[in-house]
């Protein structure tokens, strides 16, 4: 249960979300992804004011502007890698030709250019994580939320992903990454939000 949380991240800001297991990191990410709504208080995400009574259509439109990397990836097992990554673009009714270009570029970048046609169910853990990351960023969201996005990646891939998040942040995308990986934090020193038992204990460098 989260309570007494108050913080703001400017547009283009990068925040590590830290804390022990069960501190509420995933709950906070779900709240920011508007999968749960605040019982009290308000959220303002990408200039959208959210309360417990916000209309569902508003929440759905907001979700389309957020890229979320879940800890368990949440891929469609029967769909190919390409179809999985294309989903956010299709939900935005982008033209198929544009979708093909975007999907191919992002999958090549995450190193899955040769695995386009493989059903997600047949991918390794690392490949599934890269597919989930590609799906989260393919539509150039205004906010990226990532829950342990590198736990199944090898170090070079994890560093590459971190560099991408940093670059997206520089370009104006707000990024919040929950992690336990201290090596990554040392590699990219950025402000952090430290949670413990649902409370925000520290905020800053």
């Amino acid at each position, binding site marked *: 249960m989260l309570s007494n949380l108050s913080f703001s991240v400017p547009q283009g800001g990068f925040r590590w979300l830290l804390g022990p297991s069960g501190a509420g990191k995933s709950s906070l990410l779900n709240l920011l992804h508007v999968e749960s709504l605040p019982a009290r208080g308000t959220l303002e995400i990408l200039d959208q004011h959210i309360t417990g009574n916000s209309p569902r259509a508003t929440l759905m439109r907001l979700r389309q502007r957020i890229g979320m990397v879940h800890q368990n990836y949440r891929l469609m097992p029967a769909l190919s890698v*390409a179809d999985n990554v294309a989903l956010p673009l299709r939900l935005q009714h982008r033209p198929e030709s544009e979708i093909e270009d975007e999907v191919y570029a992002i999958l090549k970048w995450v190193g899955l250019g040769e695995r386009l046609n493989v059903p997600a169910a047949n991918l390794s853990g690392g490949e599934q994580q890269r597919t989930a990351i590609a799906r989260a960023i393919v539509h150039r969201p205004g906010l990226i939320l990532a829950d342990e996005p590198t736990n199944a990646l090898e170090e070079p891939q994890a560093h590459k992903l971190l560099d991408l998040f940093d670059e997206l942040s520089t370009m104006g995308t707000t990024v919040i990454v929950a992690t336990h990986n201290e090596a990554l934090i040392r590699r990219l020193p950025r402000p952090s939000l430290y949670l413990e038992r649902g409370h925000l204990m520290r905020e800053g460098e």
Partner: protein
Amino acid sequence: MTLPFSGRKDGLSLSEALPDRSLFILVAMMSFLAALTLTGATGARTLSARWAGGAAQLLTIQVSEPDQPAPQQVGAPTTTQQAPQTRAQAVLAYLANLPEGTHTHQMSKEELAHLLTPWLGESNKTALPLPAVIEVRLPEGAEVPPTLEQTLNTRIPGTVVEHNAEWSSRLRALAASLLACAALALATVGGIATMITALATRTGLATRRDIIEILHGLGASDSYIAGRFAGRTGILALGGGLVGTILAIAPLVLLFRMAAPFAVSSLQSTAATMPDWRTLPSMLPTDLLISLIALPFAAAFIGWATTQTMVRLWLRRLP
């Protein structure tokens, strides 16, 4: 560069999630029943309209010994030049006083013989004394004078007035009860179709819960997900409705043949053979034809609307 995309694939794979074959067959059966019910209802409505509009305004008057002189009325002026009226002529003369627009027709001997052919045979010569039969058709809205039979019997004793209104009202009551039964049957069929679609949709939602949650998490709106499900069930119901309606045509032709004696005026026409398939549309009442054409679309609408409602209600449970 072409990616291995498969159209608008979103992972729902509704052809596998929904019990397609069962839904199709059940909707076809429901549509079959609905088509037969509509046919019965149309028949009952048509007969009711005929009885209400035509038969109720019709009187049949029988005048025995029609060629005998009519009795002289007490106090009526007599002239030597005027030939004595026959009994039939006297009745016709009195009927001329009925409301304007009343049509009277005394059946000729040939018409009478033709009418009695089933009982007396083809021969025009019969030893039986036949009465004169006068058909009286009153204009729309006009009522038969309540004292008509009494007055005619006073002037021309033995005249029989048969008013169809009594039979007509009984038959109309029968037709109305048949129509009510048909409406109830149609409502039941519609209710069952709704329940079947709702159950099929629940099955589909249960098997695709994880996929729907992922789509929802990516920002798929309720209308998108409900539209995907409703589109699928709508198409299945349309197909089932079409098949059911087409299959109902054969028994419908049989019913049409059975109802032919009520639909034609000539007794000879009742021996008509089975109608030709190609001429069937022109033989069916227009309202029945429209109802049958609309039936598959009504089935599709029931399927679509039920699924839309079910899915939207179900999605409300999701965050």
